[in-house]
């Protein structure tokens, strides 16, 4: 289906035409497309931000990469190996290299246990034979790597720690393993402004030490701050992707343009136009035909032009957009 999948060479993590269809209703009588034919990849020591609003399917993509939810069609490959085929021991090995951190720091900890239990679990599952001394050194070094003082945070319950500390703790957990790829799903959106930058900087630092990161966010400014590549999702489809600078400064898709115009910035006022609102009657439009953005698109042509879903086309090196307007201009 998608041309993009074949155009880009294999990298550390490759998504190739990945879709997720949920079965809903009695005994799965109806289907709901959450992710629709998504292809992109993340290279070594690269931060890619996956940007989308609520319902765009960004979290589902993260969960599919982490093997927490099944893939309906397409494939996710990590260093060339199909992730969905991994089971049992192989899957555990996969988790040695690929880990995740989630949005809500308090939900990531079992409230009735101490926070450092997440370390113990890693030890039980991945390092059953390690001796205590070695293990403690390992913990120390990964805590230092995330900027936590072990004396301050070990042996405490989650509610005794701040959101920022908890998120760092989770990153430290991943570092205990031989982690190469981190899925960071909105990991700072619930933190306070004064602490979020610290965690963000930590991610950037880890990247410079060779870690690859999929940075999932709805906040455009965060994506811009940290990532080399940006993927814009709308209703489960990739509408635009490319080097961050180009996507942000020369957005091609009308949706991306709208996002850039609506994002509130300090020191730059919104341009006053007609207030645009959507009053969705039907939550999930039929994605099988037509561009997903058709009903909101200000530049949509007549129905026939946009009645089939546009595929991603490379308009400049590395910069892809899925919009008939762009393709038409090209040809």
């Amino acid at each position, binding site marked *: 289906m998608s041309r993009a999948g074949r155009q880009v060479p294999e990298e550390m993590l490759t998504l190739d035409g990945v879709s997720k269809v949920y079965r809903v*209703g*009695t005994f799965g*009588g*109806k289907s709901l497309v959450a992710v629709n034919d998504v292809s992109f990849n993340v290279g070594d020591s690269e931060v890619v931000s996956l940007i989308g609003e609520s319902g765009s399917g960004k979290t589902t993509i993260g969960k599919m990469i982490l093997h927490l939810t099944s893939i309906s069609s397409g494939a996710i490959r990590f260093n060339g190996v199909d992730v969905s085929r991994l089971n049992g021991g192989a899957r555990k090995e996969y988790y040695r290299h690929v880990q995740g951190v989630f949005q809500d720091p308090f939900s990531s900890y079992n409230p009735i246990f101490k926070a450092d239990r997440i370390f113990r679990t890693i030890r039980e599952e991945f390092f059953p034979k390690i001796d205590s001394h070695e293990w403690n050194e390992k913990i120390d070094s990964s805590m230092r790597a995330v900027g936590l003082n072990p004396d301050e945070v070990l042996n405490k319950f989650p509610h005794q720690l701040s959101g920022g500390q908890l998120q760092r703790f989770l990153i430290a957990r991943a570092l205990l393993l031989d982690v190469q790829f981190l899925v960071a799903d909105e990991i700072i959106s619930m933190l306070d402004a004064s602490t979020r930058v610290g965690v963000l900087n930590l991610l950037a630092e880890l990247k410079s030490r060779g870690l690859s990161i999929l940075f999932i966010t709805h906040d455009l400014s965060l994506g811009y701050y940290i990532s080399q590549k940006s993927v814009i999702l709308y209703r489960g489809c990739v509408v635009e992707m490319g080097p961050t600078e180009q996507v942000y400064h020369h957005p091609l898709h009308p949706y991306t343009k709208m996002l850039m115009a609506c994002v509130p910035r300090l020191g730059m006022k919104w341009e006053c136009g007609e207030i645009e609102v959507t009053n969705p009657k039907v939550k999930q439009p039929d994605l099988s035909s037509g561009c997903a953005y058709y009903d909101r698109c200000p530049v949509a042509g007549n129905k026939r032009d946009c009645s089939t879903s546009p595929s991603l086309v490379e308009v400049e090196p590395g910069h892809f957009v899925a919009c008939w307007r762009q393709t038409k201009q090209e040809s």
Partner: protein
Amino acid sequence: MRRYFGRKLLIYAITFVLAVTVDWAIPRFMPGNPVEILIARAGLKAESAKLIYSYYMKAFGLNVPIWRQYLNFWIALFHGDLGVSLWLFPQPVMKIIKQAVPYDILLLLPAILLSWLAGNKFGAYAARSKWLDNTISPLAYILQATPYMWLGMLLAWLCGVRLHLLPFSGAYSNAMMPSFSWSFVWSLLQHWILPFASLFIVQFGGWAIGMRNMIIYELEADYSHYLEALGAPRKLVRSYAFHNALLPQITGLALQLGAIVGGALATEIVFSYPGIGFLILQAIQNHDYFLLQGSCLFIIIGVLLANFLIDLAYVLVDPRTRVGMQGEG
């Protein structure tokens, strides 16, 4: 809407089929010849035993394949044929049940509806003040824990035996024949009060507790706080909360029906009230398996029907089910 009811009907249908199947299977899959065992246990005279034996050998049709027996059972059921009673041989079970059912309706319908209404009202009052809550709620918990039959016995002893206020046995005076005379209706009413009261009081406790807990939850809901912040009077906030708290109570009514029917059986036994519960006791004491089986099937069908009616009513009062269904359909 169709999907919602389809699902509900499916559950009821499966339940019904299962109940009938259990009913059919139990005597057949027990070791030995079921007819012989049943008749031997009934302890009938030799002569009638023989007659009954031949009747039931035919009815059970043990000589045809098992699936055929099962099919025959269903066919008979749809013809309203529940077999013949051993205890009142040769009266058909169906006929005996038909005579008992009016008493059950007379007793259960008012008891269920009135206790539900009163319990909900009082539960809502209880949530209103600390004082009421501290008196009504513990009382309601104790009522909820009272076995129906024990309350019945207490009432019979206190009001009937000690104070001679009300009769406590049968549905009407022994000296009367059923008729549409005032004196008969008066007698019927007098005999009805105590069994009704024991059913009413126990259920009342349960509903009051349920409503109290629900309405407190609703009063803490966001929409209640919003109304309060906009200065809406207590009355409006409470009436919304009451209405919304009532919805789970309707579902609760459907789910509690089985237990209520069980309580009614015990109550009828205490007061020798000639409903199906009393029949069941007779059937057990006389080892009349067919009467027992028939009565039980009848109750199951009744409960399932009532459940379905409550589901219908629920859709009428809760717009969310309707709207959600439209979206789905």
